[in-house]
């Protein structure tokens, strides 16, 4: 109709060869990348085909082929490690019962770390822990999927100096006891380790910045001097409290 209105006898079309399944999927990836983004599980299913067709699981190569970021590829791959019934669950359950693909992608790093703790890995199977985490999520003991990042940080805090015994006990409580959430457990156990690490980095950065300053060019009554004096007092009070 448009062509006839323009007075053309033929419809001008850009004829392209019919894409094979892989080309079709890659084209869809690119379209979704610039338009409406896919949900994680459908993306992961399509990525499964791409991985097989291209014969690679390299996040870099898959990212280049699909226009997904490497982080997104990693999340899709993490989701695909879960037993099929869970991935199906992220596709089909009714909206009030659905556990999204993001739930599993976020759970994955914490799950792998939990299974490496002998006190947990020997007692519970992978599916036992997944089922318990789903139950806790449905019961609102876990309020958001991002809380699994705190669980990962909680376990990793052992490497940063937290008491292994205490962390393992807290993780076991999270797995075993109804009503025990992640966020509060993390705050009471490991948050201080990360806060201390952050302050230490800030100290190093501040020392470096101060050492670059030329004292003769700083006004004695400037806000910088005032701020540094307050900081010095706070540090002294803190160190005295520790001693």
């Amino acid at each position: 109709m448009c062509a006839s209105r323009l007075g053309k006898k033929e419809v001008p079309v850009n004829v392209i060869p019919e894409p094979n399944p892989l080309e079709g999927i890659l084209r869809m990836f690119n379209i979704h990348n610039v338009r409406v983004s896919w949900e994680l599980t459908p993306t992961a299913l399509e990525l499964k085909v791409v991985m097989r067709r291209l014969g690679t699981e390299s996040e870099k190569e898959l990212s280049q082929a699909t226009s997904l970021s490497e982080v997104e590829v990693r999340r899709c791959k993490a989701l695909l490690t879960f037993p099929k019934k869970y991935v199906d669950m992220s596709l089909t359950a009714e909206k009030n019962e659905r556990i999204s693909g993001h739930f599993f992608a976020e759970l994955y790093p914490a799950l792998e770390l939990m299974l490496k703790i002998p006190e947990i890995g020997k007692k519970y199977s992978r599916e036992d822990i997944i089922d318990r985490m789903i139950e806790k999520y449905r019961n609102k003991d876990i309020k958001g999927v991002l809380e699994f990042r705190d669980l990962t940080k909680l376990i990793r805090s052992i490497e940063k100096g937290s008491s292994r015994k205490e962390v393992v006990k807290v993780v076991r409580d999270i797995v075993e006891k109804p009503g025990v959430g992640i966020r509060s457990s993390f705050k009471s156990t490991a948050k201080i380790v990360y806060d201390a690490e952050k302050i230490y980095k800030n100290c190093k950065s501040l020392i470096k910045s101060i050492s670059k300053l030329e004292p003769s060019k700083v006004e004695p009554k400037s806000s910088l001097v005032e701020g540094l004096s307050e900081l010095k007092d706070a540090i002294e009070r803190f160190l005295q409290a520790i001693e």
Partner: protein
Amino acid sequence: MPSRTQRSFFQEKSGDIEALARNFSGYATNIDEYSIRSWLAQFDDNHLDVGLKLLKHVEFYKQPRVVHELQVLHETLEQINDNQREMIFCAFGQAGKSGDSLLHTYRIANHIPTLSSFIHLTDLPDYVEREDLMLVFVDDFIGTGDQALKLWEKIQGVINEENQVYLMVLCATDNGIRHVEEGTRGRLSVVYNTVLHEDSKLFSDSNIKFTSEEKAILRDYCMKAGSDPEGYGKSQLALIFYYRAPDNVISILRCDTKWKGLFPRNP
């Protein structure tokens, strides 16, 4: 404690109540005469007969009926599959719930020994290169068709266009069938045993099983019970499977609020 009117009603209608208890006996929450009486007791004394009438018009799918209907559906599929494509079956409903158990029943009912013919949705990418398949998604019911369309959008990318794809259900509304087939541009054809038309809606003018007054009374109770009073998509159905009540069912039959439905969805 039941009122005097209720006691008298239950005594007078004990035969009907016993028959209903037998009919509903396979439901997940173990329905008996007492649970039916408790459910009826939520109605005002002068509405007990309307409540009882509603129960008599509940379309209940007992297990033997489901098995038989799955056999009929399988025969239908074999007739459709005249070019002898390999049939692959996949649950389409709630994972780990009705879809999965229905698929298992389907396999047993039709003596299909090959487990490899039954796959998860997650397996679909493994079949994307095949062009000789008849993919059959299995579910119990299509109400509005919204849920089926949403799921289709998520999986269509890993289904080879050369394959025939069917959604096989025990029962579907005519609107739901149209919505699914049009929404998938004919890629997903619905195979069903029973189709529900406008007269299946409890409060519709086309429904001649209930008078206008009875419809108004029932609707009023549904509104008071809340929880999507007319059912999802205003489907207004009274259709129950022995393992669950669809969310398209009117609230007084399935809800678990201050009003206790006889067929709670999450027993």
